[in-house]
């Protein structure tokens, strides 16, 4: 079997909040995620999952310790460099905030690709339709995002996260608003992406069934990783 490539790695990450009182939200978090791995992060509410995910996504830079993505040191990079890294390498699905409400679903999916500028407008449009179809909402493509239900919005957000074929896709409870049928679609999509296209998925979830079908579960408690490979 081939040697597994490390795609994401953290060294002793710690995170403090100072408002309203000094509070250590993350403590000595060190772990690795491998290429084409589908990892679920689990743990009780308030244990620091979202906080960690924001750091992994390169958006939060106020932390101690080090972060590496695809062998490149992320810690200490300039904001503009980080923005470019996010655009190309990371797809993100947020816990609550999803889409640009004034744009059509299609446009929402297209925007990160237009920003990347690798393909022509027509090609990007075509790819965006494909991603929407993958998540079963192609029929909503031309509606303004604000006119969609929460679950539909969440699926558009997932389609958007996929559009630039990023190396890593990070999700904060991507199935929180979905019924079992659509949760199944998302799960299959993620499995397909990791197995067939070699993309890495890191997703926070409260859904034990969902977590059970991932490659590996990382369990957190009180800002620390307590199990790197929890069996459910």
């Amino acid at each position, binding site marked *: 079997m081939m040697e597994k490539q490390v795609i994401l790695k953290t060294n002793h990450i710690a995170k403090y909040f100072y408002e309203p009182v000094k509070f250590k939200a993350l403590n000595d978090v060190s772990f690795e995620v491998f290429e084409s791995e589908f990892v679920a992060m689990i743990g009780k509410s308030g244990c620091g999952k*979202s906080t960690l995910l924001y750091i992994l*996504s390169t*958006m939060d830079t106020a932390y101690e310790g080090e972060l590496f993505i695809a062998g490149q040191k992320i810690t200490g990079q300039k*904001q503009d460099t980080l923005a470019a*890294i996010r655009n190309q390498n990371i797809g993100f699905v*947020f816990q609550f905030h999803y889409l*640009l409400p004034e*744009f059509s679903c299609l446009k929402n999916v297209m925007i990160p690709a237009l*920003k990347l500028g690798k393909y022509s407008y027509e090609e990007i449009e075509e790819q965006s339709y494909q991603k929407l179809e993958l998540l079963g909402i192609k029929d909503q493509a031309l509606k303004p995002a604000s006119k969609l239900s929460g679950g539909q919005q969440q699926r558009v957000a997932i389609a958007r996260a996929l559009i630039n074929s990023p190396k890593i896709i990070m999700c904060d409870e991507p199935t929180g608003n979905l019924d079992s049928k659509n949760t199944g679609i998302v799960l299959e999509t993620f499995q397909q992406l990791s197995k067939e296209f070699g993309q890495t998925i890191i997703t926070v979830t409260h859904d034990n069934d969902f977590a059970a079908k991932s490659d590996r579960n990382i369990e957190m408690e009180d800002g620390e990783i307590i199990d790197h490979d929890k069996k459910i």
Partner: protein
Amino acid sequence: MRLNVDSDIALTHLLTRKKQTMIAALGVTVGIGIFIFMISLVVGFNRYSDEALFKAAPHLRIYKDDMLSQPLIPQSNSGYATVIVNPKITNVSNALINPEKIMADLIKQEDVVTVAPQVSVNLFYNNGTSQINGVASGVNILEANAMFNIQSTMLAGDVRNLVATPNGILIGVGIARKLNIQLHDNINITSSVGVVKVMKVEGIFKTSNSNIDLTKSYVNLAVSQQLLHQSSSFVTDILVNIKDPDKAPEFSKRLQRVTIYKVEDWQAANEQTMSSKKTRAVMFGAISLAILLVAAFGIYNIINMTIKEKLNDIAILKATGFSGKDVINIFIKETLIMGFIGTLFGLLLAAGLIKVVSGIYIGGDREYFPIGFELSIFIAGAIIGMLVTLGAGYIPALNAAKIDPIEIFRK
């Protein structure tokens, strides 16, 4: 052509909030419109007052200044006292020596357009027992007309008739009224040295200055020399018009270096007019700038509001890989579009205002309000409008670029 992403986003923001966009643009419209209108008003009025001025005064006047008598024994060094004589104006002739040579040299200068000799005579106008004192300008009437456009001020008669009539005179309308004199009537004049002549009125003029109309007359150069008992080479003033009247002070400085006579530019001769001109420019400039500032505040507010409402959008854009520069770009583009629309309509508004005001009848020799379309003011207004809106949008855009997406997502 396809818009790039930043423009696409900017445009969508503007189109989904048409009302705010229009309000911001309207602010710029009013600001720029009033700004251009006010400046046009000042420029138009200044040009009008200059024109009125140049109907009576040349750009430059060369004459012999009065001189004070010198001390009998001047103080030769600090140890000695000065022997003082009561200093007073020396009573020498105010004639220019060899005026033909001076005029010939002047006309060779490339900036010079017209050069005309003049003899000023203080005199009395008489008709029966009524008498008015005044000043007659002895001139070569065709040259003087080229310089002052006297013909345009004529109520009756023609300046050219003075050429054919050696003892003709052109008088101000005030003199004609007071002495009850009509065109082609005779008028008695008595010069300061006591020469009496009977002149034939060949023209009556009306300037914008009633004081001039009540004192001034034009006669032929030869008549004026006779009135002063002088020879035909006697000239008291040389009047010069140059290409650009605004350059008169520099030209007069240059000229002053090479002549013993006094060279006076029209700006120096009309300090009063010049200072009121400056006051006007400062006043109107300040008012229109204030209006522009208010417009800028409107833009600033609307962009600020847009950003407040779009915090989520900004956070999402940043999370998906848009840099701070892109965010600035997006909001600058929104500002520029609003500024552009506003400026465009501002130009139209200014044009409309100018059109309306230039049709207002004010009487006098100008008849209509002195205002006109000045391309340079419109261009300046458009540039200032775009710059001001750019500045007003740039500050909030900078703040938007600094927004931390994490803080938005955690809320």
